[in-house]
């Protein structure tokens, strides 16, 4: 390729930004694999003295093996966050799609207006209250995290779906007598997918943060739970004595959120480019 040509197509060449997809996926995959497969591993965690260097990663403040804790602590840390986002999308997505596709204005307004009112509720506040009310219940925290995300998800899905559903494409498809399913899933659904995928990354990060913050504050799971965020909180005085007891769970959390952030960033760029090229 000649230098001049490179200048001409420079915009496209530079687009693969920063870190490659492989790294992002790897960052997400490592904690995910640990969380999913960890509890299944036949790892023999032997208790020892507090903050001792015994074992692969030493022990924590209660003398528990850090690696053993890591292997079982991911399910709650990531599971609650992912569960909350899935739940938020099930409820919020359903509300958004229904509001966008209905021909009855009252139904649309009736579903979206209450959510507008809920938007300014401080999320950590709601979750804290719920978490304390049903102390140590992972399900309650998951539901609470999902609930604070429902209004934004519903608005996003509604806006994206309405954009697609109100355009002439849907009319053209109706003119061709395409079935309701083909139109809703094949076209409207696919149009919503782009913004949703981009949002999913940041939303999962946010959910991980919320769940972890509640647990860190001691308002969520029991202080002896093996959860990664709880571990960071419990062992923070021991950071200098036995760094891995804090850094290992922290790194797994950060790796997960960082990977998702990078993927989301890429998706945002891709969907924007799609829109631009369509103009």
């Amino acid at each position, binding site marked *: 390729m000649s230098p001049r040509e490179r200048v001409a197509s420079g915009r496209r060449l530079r687009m693969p930004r920063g870190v490659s997809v492989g790294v992002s996926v790897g960052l997400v995959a490592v904690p995910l694999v640990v969380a999913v497969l960890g509890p299944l591993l036949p790892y023999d965690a032997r208790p020892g003295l507090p903050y001792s260097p015994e074992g692969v990663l030493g022990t924590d403040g209660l003398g528990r093996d850090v690696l053993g804790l890591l292997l079982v602590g991911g399910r709650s840390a990531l599971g609650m966050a992912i569960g909350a986002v899935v739940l938020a999308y099930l409820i919020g997505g359903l509300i958004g799609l229904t509001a966008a596709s209905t021909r009855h204005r009252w139904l649309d307004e009736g579903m979206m207006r209450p959510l507008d009112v809920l938007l300014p509720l401080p999320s950590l506040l709601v979750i*804290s209250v719920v978490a304390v009310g049903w102390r140590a219940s992972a399900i309650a925290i998951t539901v609470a995290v999902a609930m604070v995300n429902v209004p934004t998800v519903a608005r996003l899905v509604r806006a994206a779906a309405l954009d697609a559903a109100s355009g002439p494409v849907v009319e053209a498809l109706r003119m061709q007598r395409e079935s309701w399913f083909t139109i809703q899933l094949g076209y409207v659904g696919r149009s919503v997918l782009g913004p949703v995928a981009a949002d999913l990354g940041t939303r999962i990060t946010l959910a991980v943060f919320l769940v972890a913050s509640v647990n*860190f*504050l001691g308002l969520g799971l029991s202080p002896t739970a093996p959860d990664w965020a709880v571990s960071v909180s419990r062992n923070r005085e021991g950071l200098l004595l036995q760094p891995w007891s804090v850094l290992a769970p922290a790194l797994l959390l950060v790796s997960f959120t960082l990977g998702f952030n990078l993927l989301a960033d890429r998706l945002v760029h891709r969907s924007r480019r799609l829109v631009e090229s369509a103009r």
Partner: protein
Amino acid sequence: MRSYAAQRAGLAIVQLAVLSVLVFVLTSLLPGDAADLRFTETLTPSQVAALRAELGLDQPPVERFVHWLGNVLTGDLGTSLISGGPVVDIVRHSIGATLVLTLATLAIVVPLAVALGIVMGTRENGRVDRAITSITLALSAIPDFVIAVVLVAVFSLKLGWLPATWIGGNLLSSPALLILPIAVLFGRTVCLLSRQVRAGTVAALNAEYVTQARRLGIPRRQLLLRHVLPNAAVPGVQELARTGDTLLGGVLVVEAIFAIPGFATALVDGVETRDIPTVQGLTLVLAVAALLINLGADLVCNRLVPRTALLR
């Protein structure tokens, strides 16, 4: 424009009404009340019942709500079940530290984020842009408490440069106390905000009206300041309102770690001791603050780039 402001304020009033109900319901849902929690070991069941009656906990919820709302409207947030003092006093004592923390953070974050966002936006996909983007992206992926734990370990425990916890006294008179908490709060907020300003700048720079202004000979500096900036600021201001939520979560964590007797600490204490009037009072104040921030942000955005109507 006036009609937009009126509509938006109307929405805020409705939001306020619904929020007050919600705050009451949510806090009333907490299982077990202060009477249970404090005295079950020393009192007989009949004494507990008497205490309930005294605290008004035996009345039906609707009546309690009306009573509570009536008091709130006259500025009385009730009496703490734990300390026995008025909730308003708790609010007054704790709000100072939180305000100082929040405002000091914003005072640093906002100008920096706007500057960074414009620098990135005007150099879209350039080396500087990609470098700052990568850093902000990575920083915003680290939870507040992880940053806090690491910073405390390094700067307080290891190096001993900065105090690790609150040791009493005025926050403003000993700025060293503020350095670590602000450092923790600063990272994520500046990342989120600058990314929005960047997006706004890029969008405005690529907009046809900026191209046209450039073609009519408007010099670059004037173009950036007068034609790009007002449009670029809109997503930033909206993000600032949302940042309020993130920041609040961060403040909660930071206050807990550094043992700062602020709003969040009072709230966590209240929740843990089932001091429902205190929790209701504090939650209400926070919710109203969040609501006002959202209202303000929307009005500012509408002043920057006017829209026809609020309702679709």
